[in-house]
């Protein structure tokens, strides 16, 4: 199911990608497209391969078959740090913050690829190095502002409650000014208020920074609310792909995942 207007080259194209671990087909010939500027939700039961999909896009796993195209070019076999250089950022299911660093430092690490520096000047913290550091600090402060985490910027990340950690992880991903943002269960473990905040932020990111977003999410009301398009996976295969209301009514998806409300 395509959206009404014919899109320009999709930002991300996954073409027949398979990932096998021994005899297990984590992903089986999955093909999908993520158009620029959209919010795409990936749903499915546990073990369906959703995180594996994100991992393959991020470069942690290399597909045993198929290709991945980013901005029209084949990017199938890149290492994660090269993928980052392309403009893809992500968050993780089990919040992967740097627990020993403060929130501010964590987010500043997200700016790493934007930092050009001479090592020598860094060592002296002189002139251009200091100027750059402060510029990046200013940018990061904008993100901190946007995500409303000013109060905790000097707190070590390991000491934050779970919900705030997830927000900081989002901030870190945003610091890289990504073209494509991959979120792995960004609302997991949050209460209703926190989820509303997160939805607001995700939509805000999509709106203001024009970032394309793909997120894995289990909460169907969130999915219905914020996504432009939904992709459903089951046992490593794509079983549905279309507008939220279409996918919600899709029989295969109902059978595999959503179930039917009992009278």
């Amino acid at each position, binding site marked *: 199911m395509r959206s009404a207007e014919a899109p320009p080259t999709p930002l991300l194209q996954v073409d027949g990608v398979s990932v096998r671990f021994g005899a297990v087909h984590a992903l089986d010939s999955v093909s999908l497209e993520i158009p620029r500027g959209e919010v795409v939700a990936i749903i499915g039961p546990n073990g369906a391969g959703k995180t594996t999909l994100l991992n393959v896009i*991020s470069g*942690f796993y290399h597909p045993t078959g198929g290709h991945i195209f980013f901005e029209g070019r084949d990017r199938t076999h890149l*290492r*994660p*740090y090269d*993928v*980052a*250089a392309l403009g893809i*950022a*992500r968050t*993780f299911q089990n919040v*992967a*913050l*740097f*627990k*020993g*660093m403060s929130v501010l*430092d964590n987010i*500043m*690490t*997200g700016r*790493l*690829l934007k*930092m050009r*520096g001479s*090592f020598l000047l*860094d*060592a*002296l*913290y002189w002139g251009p*190095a*200091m100027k750059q*550091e*402060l510029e990046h*600090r*200013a940018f990061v*402060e904008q993100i901190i502002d946007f995500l409303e985490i000013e109060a905790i910027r000097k707190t070590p990340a390991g000491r934050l409650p779970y919900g705030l950690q997830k927000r900081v992880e989002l901030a*870190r991903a945003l610091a*890289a000014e990504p073209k494509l943002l991959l979120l792995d269960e960004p609302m997991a473990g949050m209460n209703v208020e926190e989820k509303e905040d997160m939805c607001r932020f995700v939509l805000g990111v999509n709106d203001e920074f024009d970032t394309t977003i793909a997120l894995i999410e289990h909460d169907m009301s969130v999915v219905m609310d914020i996504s432009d398009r939904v992709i459903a996976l089951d046992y490593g295969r794509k079983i549905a792909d279309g507008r939220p209301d279409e996918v919600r009514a899709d029989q295969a998806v109902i059978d595999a995942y959503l179930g039917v409300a009992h009278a």
Partner: protein
Amino acid sequence: MFYREAGQFKSTYASDQAIFPIRQDRIVVAAALVAAVVGVPLVADEYWLQAVLIPFLIYSFAALGLNLLTGYAGQVSLGTGGFMAVGAYSAFKITSAFPGVPIVLVFLLAGLVTALVGVLFGIPSLRIKGFYLAVATLAAQFFLLWLFNKVAWFTDYASSGTITAPPRAVLGVMVTGPEATASVRYLTALILVGFFAIIAKNLVRGRVGRSWMAIRDRDIAAEIIGVRPLRTKLLAFAISSFYCGVAGAEYVFLYLGSAETLAFDINVSFLVLFMVIIGGLGSILGSFLGAAFIVTVPIFLTNAPHLIGVPLPVALQKQIELMVFGGLIILFLIVEPNGLARLWQICKEKLRLWPFPY
């Protein structure tokens, strides 16, 4: 009430990122620097300089190096002694081959050589992590020491198998060798460690330090941000080894006067590791605090019995030293695994509130 930050607002990011953002800290540090540079040489006697302050400065340097590698970059290393040896022997060879080169430059060159060696032994760190890496660094430790022992070229074919620091002067003042006074050697060590401590601080609060800490805390997430693990780790090994190499050169040239490989054996590696852990992993200040602790405990233990009038036979003293040392380490790890630096932070926080309890 003296330590209040109230009224000290930061209006620019620059002042927020300064090394000592609090005015009271700046005053204290300035005073300490004056005391160290001017006061100490005036007041301290030969014994204190030779037995306490100079080794303290040199060990701090080595602890800085190890802290950068293990505390910030998370790469456990038990090869510190070996790298210090590389620095010492390189300095010796360079200065005996080129006596005209200024001795401080010789130290730095020795550091560079050690950095290269460090990179070599750091290559396994891409595949090997944690404990296993520690064992790999042990290979460096034992191999390097064996090398310096066996290959007589390193000692310029000295029959005693030791290297001796030749007399060298800076601006007319003897810095190494039997003529060099303790004060001069102290000042040299102080200036060197002070300068490189600032460099270390600049590195860790910027881009480089953050990449290291990212690798230390979550290397997988670090990759997704764009950190290149091998490059980052090798940089850590290089810089850390540089520091250890310079410290090793200073060890022989400014402190011992002459040494053989025994001076750099595995015990030194453990000693420096203790300094880093007790002082605080991932803390520049901690490296100094840990070195101070480890240097003064034996001195204290040696002198305390005399002070309270109970002289002990030497062997017994050594045994008690070992026991107290071991006991203190365990005690420390139980009480404050984050080291003296954290205790210091807690002190400062309490000081902020003083005289109120909380």
